[in-house]
């Protein structure tokens, strides 16, 4: 089903960015930043503007872990799963997070508050285990108790 607001947003982004060299990633980022995900109706519009096939655009969207094709929960919570965080307990934290949210990685909690994602290093490897919320908030040395506090706060926010 086509959402006219999505179409307008994508058209605006295309007008601003389509002449950049290598414009596809900047365009996809803008679409995701604006809409929270890359809706399927964006694909033919982007393909036409960049003179690509829809398959090519689709191929790029699905190649990159960062791009999502469906709307996330109100917040995206990323738990670092890379080695330096493993050395200080990120596996246990991931299990705790999955239990607390009652969902797996790449899924959203029942109440729609949080989409849980793994991430492979956030660049804070001296103070793990680390989590990131929505690109804006970071927490270091996250114990299960601290995770529960952070989660309670997130759930209380609209």
């Amino acid at each position, binding site marked *: 089903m086509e959402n006219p607001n999505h179409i307008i947003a994508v058209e605006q982004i295309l007008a601003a960015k389509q002449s950049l060299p290598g414009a596809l990633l900047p365009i996809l980022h803008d679409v995701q930043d604006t809409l929270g995900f890359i809706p399927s109706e964006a694909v033919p519009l982007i393909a036409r503007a960049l003179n690509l096939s829809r398959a090519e655009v689709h191929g*790029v969207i699905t190649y990159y872990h960062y791009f999502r094709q469906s709307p996330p929960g109100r917040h995206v919570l990323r738990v670092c799963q890379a*080695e330096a965080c493993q*050395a200080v307990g990120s596996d246990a934290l991931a299990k705790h997070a999955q239990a607390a949210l009652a969902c797996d990685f790449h899924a959203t909690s029942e109440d729609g508050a949080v989409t849980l994602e793994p991430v492979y290093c956030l660049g804070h490897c001296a103070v793990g285990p680390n989590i990131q919320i929505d690109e804006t908030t970071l927490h270091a040395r996250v114990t299960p108790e601290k995770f529960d506090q952070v989660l309670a706060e997130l759930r209380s926010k609209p």
Partner: protein
Amino acid sequence: MTTTIYIPCDSTARALGAEAVAASFASEIARRQLDVTLVRNGSRGLFWLEPLIEVATPAGRVAYGPVAAKDVASLLQADVLNGGAHPLCLGKVEEIPYLKRQQRISLKRVGVTDPLSVADYLAHGGTRGLRRALTLTPLEIVKEVTDSGLRGRGGAAFPTGIKWNTVLHAADEKKYIVCNADEGDSGTFSDRMQMEGDPFGLIEGMAIAGLAVGARQGYIYVRSEYPHAIAMLNVAVERATAEGWLGGNLLGSGKAFYLQVRKAAGAYVCGEETALLESLEGRRGIVRAKPPLPAITGLFGKPTVINNVITLGSVPDILANGAAAYQAFGCGRSRGTLPFQLAGNIKYGGLVEVPFGLTLRELLYDFGGGSLSGRPLRAVQVGGPLGAYVPESQFDTVLDYEAFAAVGAVLGHGGIVAFDDTVDMMKQARYAMAFCAIESCGKCTPCRIGSTRGVEVIDRLAAGNPGQTALLRELCDTMQNGSLCAMGSMTPYPVLSALNHFPEDFSRRPR
């Protein structure tokens, strides 16, 4: 008299509560009507002490840390504005042994200056390298970089001057400078600290690279996991352009260099230089076969210099102070300094920029203080997810590219991830294969299929089938010799080092 207080805006410091500390200072200062300027500096990289604040006193900058928002009132009570005594006082920041024993070159301004202040940058030696480069011919600039002995800090340690020379001599109107800021290796954060803490230094290095090879356009490809670095770079590019450090008329010379920041999208393999170029061009980040080298046929088919953040960030100093000064540091064929990053299960984790030549043990114990847990260190992964696990018996290996190669390991981007004796090395080997399976670009079979088979073989080993080790070795051999890029060919490093140094972890009976 106005007093300056520095509170880091580095994102690790923020993860540890620096924003709340800054807010608390701001409100307490207003309430007490104190004459104080708050400056948001980068981090010194002493992360166990973050948030680490500094007060500028006539005798030098005095540090306090780790500071929590609730400490701010008591700090102001204790007359910190004059460097007063307080339980959190660490003395003069530059006298803290962890920092004092370092030799900071590429990251010398990080933590010292306001990263976005033009005045600070100039006051701390900024643009001296660019100014000197503008008095030299392209060949002379390349020679300076070659003579410095600088090798690529992204992992492969290829001599930077040789790469630049190839691009300089490629006959083409259009050339590019690309900065690889994909920093995907676990245990590494020096690129992030450079971009967040001294973005002008990177920009200056790229402008010099442009002058050296005759490129007028540059791109910085930054991983999406670093939103703060991207924001800092974008502002820095704007300000550098306003100052004439970028743009159509570099410092009035008539020469041009333009720069754009591009955001990656979470694919580890896009740190591989040719996959990165594909991604910048707007495609899936699939590795290209080499030759042709990017130096000949790079971005949009044009000759391209692609270098790591720290490589480019080292260039202004080399130009400003001369190749000989840089060359004087280091050992063997590893010249200059490397910003090592101490991470994982380590007591004093952080950034340690030192000349090549210390031993791993010195780094782990003299700087790192041993494990965070207090248990013995058992294995240390050096050089990211494609780096070997180094056992205790090899901790005396000298930190230089050749010495590490001699023990079947790599220094890579200088990430050092420590594990204590609770680590299960078979699990780490499995993770290395699983990571490769997730991140493989899929172009060649040994890597795409081999990594998945590797996970299965290790799972069978775990289920108590010891005959599988021969199969695992054979698989590693195929990946090592049959893969197109280091993703597939180096995943065997962590796997085989775990198997060779910690065989006991692979022969446990299942319970």
